[in-house]
């Protein structure tokens, strides 16, 4: 996941993830941590277009629901 990130981007991603993960475990524990992390990861590409971000998140959610439905 981190092979295209610079060291500083990686550290920022970790800081953001820590905040989101803390909130998830405290108030949204039914949400899957891997899915949440993936959504954050998709958005860490700040140069991406809005449509690409939507597509990336939808794919992650669909994948998650499919796995869960199996």
């Amino acid at each position: 996941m981190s092979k295209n990130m610079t060291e500083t981007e990686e550290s920022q991603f970790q800081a953001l993830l820590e905040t989101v993960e803390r909130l998830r475990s405290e108030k949204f524990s039914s949400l899957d941590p891997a899915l949440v992390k993936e959504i954050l990861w998709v958005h860490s590409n700040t140069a991406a277009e809005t449509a690409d971000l939507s597509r990336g998140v939808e794919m992650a959610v669909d994948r998650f629901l499919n796995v869960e439905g199996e």
Partner: protein
Amino acid sequence: MLQIKALHLENFGPFKGKQVIKFSVEDGVTIIYGENMRGKTSLLNAIRFVFFGKVIGRGTKSMPLHKVGNWEEASAGRHGFMVRLDFDDGGHNYELTRRCVLKNGVSSPSSDDDYGIEHYLKKDGDVLGPQQSQAELKRILPEQISRFFLFDGELLQEYEDLLSNETDMGRRISEAIERILGVPILTSARATLHHLKEKSEHREATAAQGDQKTREFGNQLADLHAQRTELGKEIERLEGDLDKARSQKASLEEAMKKKERVAALLEKRDTIEKLLKQIESKRITKEAEVQRAMSTAWCTLLIEPVRAVGKSLRERESDLQTELMRADVLKSLQVNAGAPCPACMQEVSLKAQERLQASLHCLSGGERLEKDVELSNLRRKIAALQQYEESGHESVLKILWDGLEEILIDYSAKRSERDEIDKQLENVDEEALRKTKFDFESVIRQIDVIEKGIAKTRSALDENNADTEAIQKRLNKLSTGTVDSERKRRQLFSELHSLFKEAVGAYREQLRKRVEADASTHFKALTTEPEYAGLQINGSYGLTILHRDGSLIPVRSAGAEHVVALCLMGALQNNAPLRGPIVIYSPFGRLDRNHTRNIVRALPTMTKQVVLLVYDDELPPDLARSELKGKLRGEWMLERVNARHTNLASLKE
């Protein structure tokens, strides 16, 4: 981390021909010394130009590019200029070149349209395509956050604006701060999830419409969704308008700030014009009064003869009165012989009566009438003369003249003042200034209307959400295969959206605490005031000095503002993923020697590469050398050749 290795200039500003500054790749500070007007601003602008294609004049207004090329070369018919920046980022070598070239057929450029801009980026020796190059530059140094790398000490007002949540400049900077600190990653996730939540709700409604059991609810949800989409679009449109209006307001604010002196002069002149009109009207009234008074002014000349005649008439009146009184007394004594005196009611002896008759002349009936007529005429004349004397023409006229003179002096003084202001406003485009003021007032009204519109639409959206939720609850009780799976999807997006929505607020709060702590650490190292305990941050990342007794220091000097701004920059460098060099123009201009010493010592701790653009008095080279020691990586001097030509000379590499 972005690290500058060399800056190549060709005919940029005063830098005639090809010149280059090389920067050490080791951590530390490079100092570029230059007197005023030698090209320090041009060097900061060269970096701005190569990254963003812009050059900023005094203040924050973009400068026309046709004025940027070297004047000496331009006067010899050689137009255009070039900047190349060699830098390292994340272990890659970059060469960024931007060139401004004269368009074919143009010999003497007069506007930016006469030039074409060429730019290209080389990464590890390979030239990148336009899109790739743009994406790389956006990642390496986004323009919105460039102010934290290219710091102009002259623009401290912008940092002061952070203390007020009201100003648009403050809002713009705090947005830039959040950008540098990574908040947009979360806000963009929140926006994506909001969009997908909406989309999933629509899918759920469509699925419900497809089933007999749930059709009614599906229809209602579809209607509410359509309404919500429209409301969402309306809010988006209004927010877009609000952004535009705010940015227009900020530009107008800036323009007005720059023309503050002229605006004050205009206002003063308007006030004087009003006063002149008032004085003019007073003058007209006073002149009419004087004119009226002047119609009888000749009377003043006769006042002395009139007084003399009056005096003689009064003397005659007195004589006549005495004569008539005596005659009356005598007559009374004759008529009432033996009766007491009518004046003192004493008995009058016969002897006395004889003496009186001998001394008084007894008037005949005809004489008596004549005397009465004469007395009556005398009294009329005296009354007329008295009225004349009492009218006081002399003093009234004097008062009127004095009043008029005062008015004329006042008028003349105010007119000179106005003429003086007119002279100062000679080359000022008054109309443009008045238009700016008018536009500013209009845009404020416009913002108010838009904000009310947004609040109203949001309230309608809240109602829609409540209705949607109520229907979804009822729909949840009815189970059908397709609707169930769409509901699950919608619920997942809804929860994800709520999580990221809360995460934005939580992350912002953490950032503020971190920035406050780091800025306070820098501040304690920089300030010379032992009673200051640190800095306190507000919602817009504005920093206020905190006294050790816990109170806030509400007002600060320009020097303190400088120190606080540097602390903010240092704190942002500590907390931002985008780290890079800080190029600071005029960092010590407002600081005393002790603060200068503290800052110089602290600069290497703020970021790995610092470039200072200073003049000798602001930062004496000996002081810089003794404080920085091994961290001083380069010293350059901007050497004057002539007013239009500066050479870059290395003092130490």
